[in-house]
């Protein structure tokens, strides 16, 4: 928690965001970096409200790749929250993860893959899994609410116990396509 977020609510989120939050808590993840996304809003609120966690807003997603690597060098478990459009921003910075090793875990809310109104989201919606694979990041995916907990547990285990780089993709069906009203 930090002074920039004085109005954060002290409530654990329900549903699948709650599953991610409680798994991160149990795994003692301390630094959570993010570029905001509507699909992550509840989780971000819960992180800022938790005194054992530090919520770290970023100006661009690749900052989070470097920050997560640094956090782990210093002894903290960390992860990155973003939406699929941010994944492309991370490509070169992932060379840091490849070269230094160590855990890398990110939770990506998918846009532009299911009933998306905004075509500007579609290129990275289509390309996100391949972008991660190009840079050697293992991809897990949850399409339904009940799949989020197991995918999160698998990602946490592979990253923090196995030292792997892992992305958990959270399908757009979980969040719903944003409705634009004219």
């Amino acid at each position: 928690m930090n002074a920039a977020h004085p109005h954060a609510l002290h409530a654990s989120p329900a549903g699948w965001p709650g599953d991610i939050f409680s798994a991160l808590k149990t795994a003692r993840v301390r630094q959570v970096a993010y570029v905001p996304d509507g699909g992550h809003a509840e989780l971000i609120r819960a992180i800022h409200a938790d005194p054992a966690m530090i919520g770290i807003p970023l100006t661009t997603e690749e900052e989070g790749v470097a920050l997560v690597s640094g956090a782990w060098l210093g002894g903290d478990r960390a992860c990155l929250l973003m939406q699929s459009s941010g994944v492309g921003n991370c490509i070169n910075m992932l060379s840091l993860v490849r070269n230094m090793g160590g855990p890398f875990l990110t939770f990506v809310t998918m846009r532009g893959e299911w009933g998306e109104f905004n075509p500007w989201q579609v290129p990275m919606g289509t390309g996100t899994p391949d972008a991660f694979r190009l840079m050697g990041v293992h991809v897990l995916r949850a399409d339904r609410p009940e799949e989020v907990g197991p995918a999160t547990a698998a990602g946490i285990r592979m990253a923090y116990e196995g030292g792997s780089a892992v992305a958990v993709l959270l399908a757009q069906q979980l969040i719903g396509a944003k409705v634009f009203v004219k």
Partner: protein
Amino acid sequence: MSTAVNRLDRRAVVARLLKDRGEAIVVTGLGSPTYDVAACGDHDRNVYLWGAMGGCAVMALGIALARPETPVIAVTGDGEMLMGVGSFATIAMQAPKNLTVVILDNGLYGETGGQASHTVVADLAGMARASGIADARAIDAMGDVEGLATRATALGNGPCVAVVRIGQAELERVLPTRDGHAVRARVRQSLGLSID
């Protein structure tokens, strides 16, 4: 700015900065700052970056938040910092007391043929200050490097950004290990952590 006279010698600046580094962890931005830090002698707590351009300061932030009692110093160049300039605001939001970002500003991209960098017109210290970092300094004299070294190796009231105007001479390269896995293991071991 490139018009400054009596620009400082980069190796002398970094040597003074790290002379009494104590427990400090040092992260180096790719290119000449990596060589400058290596020229001071190898160290268990040096994190040498050979890539990840734009990530030096914000990687140092991750370390600083994890080790709030340990001074963390990012030593980077003007070009590398410009690529991650938004991280000034990210650092300001967290306000770590143990993080100092030292930018060796020669106004050019030395690694790639000496093309002019944007600091010919852009003021990195001003950008840091405008991003919320109150202690943002522009340094032109070795006397001020003394004060910076004292600040960088201790805890302050918040983060510090120092833009040190250095000469444009290309110096002999001192090449530290490029094995990031070895660096990772060594740094973590020096902090009493498991290597993996």
